């Protein structure tokens, strides 16, 4: 059961195309998993389309005649024939013998994904190069694994792809989209038998808040990158 959705404002900006690319990617992936939000997006898109295309420019521009002539000179786009259809690209990622199906919007990331590397305490991460400010990672928490308690200097967006985790604030399930900022301090932990795979984007290094993990802070730009 998905409990954490994007805000209505974010959905609206997503549909307008004014939300940042990386936030848009997270929302798009969330909608792949959440029919509730997908329906909202469809409705918002139809409304926006009829609003935005309601008004025609006042005068008919003579340039349009030339444009029309040019366009209809172009051939139709070639439809790919079944015979030359390339092999189906990978839609899953694997770790430790487990295979995870990715939501459609994230499937393109399979080929941008780096190798899995082990972090402290039953955590695995695989960086994804999105060319963004900040870092994107697939993170896998094994059963019983914990991310040391931390807060955020910037913001963190996490999409649960498969499994469940809790962080002392809430319990999260597959499809949940979680926003965290400097106001939140949490320590994600998974007790699900299959562990938990998430896709996470942070714009600033994490700031660890408790115990020995505080020693990680000087290096947190290396950690979780």
């Amino acid at each position, binding site marked *: 059961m998905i409990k954490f959705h994007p805000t209505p404002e974010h959905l609206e900006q997503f549909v307008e195309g004014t939300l940042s690319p990386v936030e848009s990617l997270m929302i798009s992936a969330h909608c792949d998993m959440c029919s509730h939000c997908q329906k909202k997006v469809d409705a918002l898109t139809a409304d926006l389309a009829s609003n935005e295309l309601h008004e025609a420019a006042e005068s008919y521009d003579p340039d349009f005649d030339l444009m029309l002539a040019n366009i209809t000179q172009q051939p139709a786009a070639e439809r790919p024939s079944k015979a030359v259809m390339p092999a189906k690209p*990978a839609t899953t990622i694997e770790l430790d013998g487990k295979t995870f199906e990715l939501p459609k919007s994230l499937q393109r990331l399979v080929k941008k994904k780096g190798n899995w590397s082990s972090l402290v305490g039953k955590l695995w991460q695989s960086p994804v190069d999105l060319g963004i400010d900040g870092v994107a990672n697939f993170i896998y928490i094994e059963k019983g694994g914990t991310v040391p308690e931390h807060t955020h200097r910037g913001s963190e967006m996490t999409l649960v792809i498969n499994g469940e985790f809790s962080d002392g604030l809430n319990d999260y399930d597959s499809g949940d989209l979680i926003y965290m900022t400097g106001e939140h301090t949490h320590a994600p932990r998974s007790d699900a038998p299959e562990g938990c795979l998430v896709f996470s984007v942070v714009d600033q290094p994490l700031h660890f808040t408790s115990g020995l993990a505080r020693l990680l802070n000087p290096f947190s730009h290396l950690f979780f990158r």
Partner: protein
Amino acid sequence: MLVGIPLEHENSALEPKECAVEMSQYLVKVAETRCKASFARIFGYFAPRLRSYALKQLGNEALAMELVQDTMSNVWQKAHLFNSEKGSPSTWIFTIARNIRFDMLRKVQNRKEDICADDLWPVLCEQTPDQNETSLDEQITLEQIGHLFDELPEKQKVVIEAIYIDGKSQQEIADELDIPLGTVKSRTRLALQRLKGMLSEYD
């Protein structure tokens, strides 16, 4: 030339909803018969509206016209991707324009993110995978091998690297490292056995 195809200026007053059925039919005709007259109707209705949207979004006459041109070109070339069950013509055409605008702004602002509109809103994707994804399997295999290679003991790694990456002979390596030729040979054999073992574990 398109002499004789009248542009429909007069139906511009219609609400998008009122003409959805009509426009759907034109789109089907364009897809099936490349009917220029039908396209002219669609163009006459949507081009001025798209321009008004584009001007508001981009604030630049030239860019606005580019957006109209790109959007309507896509409509002409990919009319077969329109599906009236999924939404109205105006929604479909608007999403095409919105996507082009997203990518135009990305270019104009010189943003470096590797996320484009097609990834977010795949309205114009054929229901078949991308051509450039074919090399994927190969790439992953190479990545995996790179990963396995890193797990080799240092001494074996040096030998394998010299043979397979630098293209040296085993004798050259023996001379360079000042170790017996037999040692180079056995390290090579051990390394290859180990890689083979690791690869079969992967399968």
